């Protein structure tokens, strides 16, 4: 079942830190399975762009921010717990083929 709206997300990572890499891997997997193409993901490396992180109010990494649809939500951690990620994103836990 396709999702009506596009989920816009931003993932803040800290270079090649272990949890950041895991987060990227986990998130891509989640997107592939539950969002198919209905998402926009920006990955921000805070080591490269600390200013950006500060401005966005992000300190902890990895950190996932759902920008749209409202409400904004945040998840910190390497996103290993899929269920809580989906809940935060407001995405039903239904796999898409």
């Amino acid at each position, binding site marked *: 079942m396709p999702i009506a709206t596009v989920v816009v997300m931003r993932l*803040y*990572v*800290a*270079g090649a*830190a*272990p*949890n*950041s890499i*895991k*987060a990227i891997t*986990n998130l891509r997997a989640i997107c592939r399975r539950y969002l198919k193409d209905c998402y926009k993901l920006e990955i921000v490396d*805070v*080591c490269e762009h*600390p*200013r950006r*992180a*500060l401005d966005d*109010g*992000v*300190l*902890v*990494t*990895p*950190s996932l921010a759902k920008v749209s649809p409202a409400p904004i*939500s*945040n*998840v*910190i*951690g*390497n*996103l*290993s*717990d*899929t269920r*809580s*990620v989906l*809940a*935060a994103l407001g995405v039903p836990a239904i796999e898409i083929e």
Partner: protein
Amino acid sequence: MQRKGSRVTPKRSATPRLLSKLATGLQGFDQISRGGLPRNRTTLVLGGAGAGKSIFALQALVNAARERKEAGIFVAFEESTGAIFANAATFGWGLPALAKSALFFLDARLSPTVVQSGDFELSGMLAILEAKKQELAASWIVLDGIDVLLSLLQNPSAEMREIYRLRDWLHHNHLTAIITAKLDGDTRPANYGFMQFMADCVIRFDRRLEQGISVRRLEITKYRGSDFAPGEFSLSFGRHGMDVVAPGRAETLHEASTQRVSSGFEGLDLMLGGGVFRGTSTLITGAPGTSKTTLAGKFAESACRRGERTLFVSFDEGGERVRRNLTSVGIHLDAYLEAGLLCMYSGRTEAMNPEEHLIRIASLLREHRPRCMVIDPLSAIARSGALSSARAVGSRLIHQVRDHDITVFITSLVGGDDPETEGTEMQVSTIADTWIHLSYLVRGGERNRALTIIKSRGTEHSNQVRELVLSATGPALTAAYSSGGEVLMGTLRWEKEAEERARQNQRHAEFMQKRRELQFAEADVAAQIATLQLQLDRQRSELARYSRDEETRQVSSGERESELRRMRGTHGAATAPPVPGKRRAVRVSASSGSNGDHEPPRGQ
């Protein structure tokens, strides 16, 4: 534990003095830490909620920025920046201005709606902070409430890992760091135990209720490579921030003075062997109304008269009232107050806790620089807090005053009827150099004030109980009057004195009488002697005349005989041969009196 990329901390062989320290600006703390916080090292501040950790950290940061132009970053994990500014507004640190220049405040609170999924690290945060640090050229960083963040990890090994990361990062960036963490009784002691190992200096803040008053304390539990004053110290919030009530120098650097200072009036000075020594403390105890304030006031007045700056601290009554009361007993302080020689401070003891009074008085000492001081009464500070803290404050106050070489008179209500109780309550009597006790003696239907010196270090003192008399010209001590082994006062004394006088008069009269009698007797005897002497003279002169007559007779009879012989002719022997047995005329010497023998010559 060696990890790739981490630095090995070199073994510190330097002596404690060489550890570089940065002053926090909290004078008491800088004193007990012997200089402040360790430069380029981490200080861990632990304590319960509201114990003062954040203010302490902030104050140190602000001080570094204001005094040494050192830039710093304050990362707040628990409070909002607005709340921090509001809390510190009363201290007048100029935070808003500093926030634009030397200080950066980072709100690192996580939104309450944030969800956690999996493990995370602090790497990102540290990268962001590093960028900021470069931008500001900051040398200080405060991580306030980092336990909030670390607790999210919910995994002891993960927490430990992050703490290591933090430590390495701080070290690599040459930052002087203060990390604050909440430590309730049961909050994961294991991890904070580990964190304590990581930190070079660990300070524990404590806040608890003692007898209904909130009492704050601080304790340095560890300071690697440095000497520090162990144990708990009281904290207080003053006008310009927090401070620690420190005990003052461990050694007294000044020598004991041998100069004497008047206690206020001559009678008491005499009892003290000349007065009190300069720089000493004198405690006056006594029940209410025994004139302790009067004595203290007299001391202050005499100090002012000598031209010495004086500080009068009154805890019971306002300055004006004290002056008015003293005027009624002949002690006039108004002129000196106006001249600026005397400074009066009256503190409401109920409103502040003992430590706050101490801080207030300390600042007065700095401003006014008195040579003499009165604290009336010190016992009042025990009203507003725990007795133990009042006691500690009392002792610290005296030491502080002594350090400044100030001669101080302290009054205390404690030990009113029984001075012994002072030793168990405020315990100032054990520290004070001189201890004067005022009491009432009730005898013969009267209440008279008695003064006695219980102790006076380093000098001889009278140990008599004397009567203190107040008049419009001031207090005076009457000479000790003792009778029958007891000291008497008031009317009893007056009566006894009158009795004595009467008795003396009586004795004198008797003496005069006796003397007269003896004089008469003497005259009598002298007259008798004169009479006898006259008789004697008469006897002698008679005797002398008699002897003369006899001589004359003998001479004339001798002449007659020779005449006869001649007439009878030269032939023949004298027909009148000398009569045998005729004695020669014996001369009676006028001086022989009864001593000489004399035989009446054979008369013819």
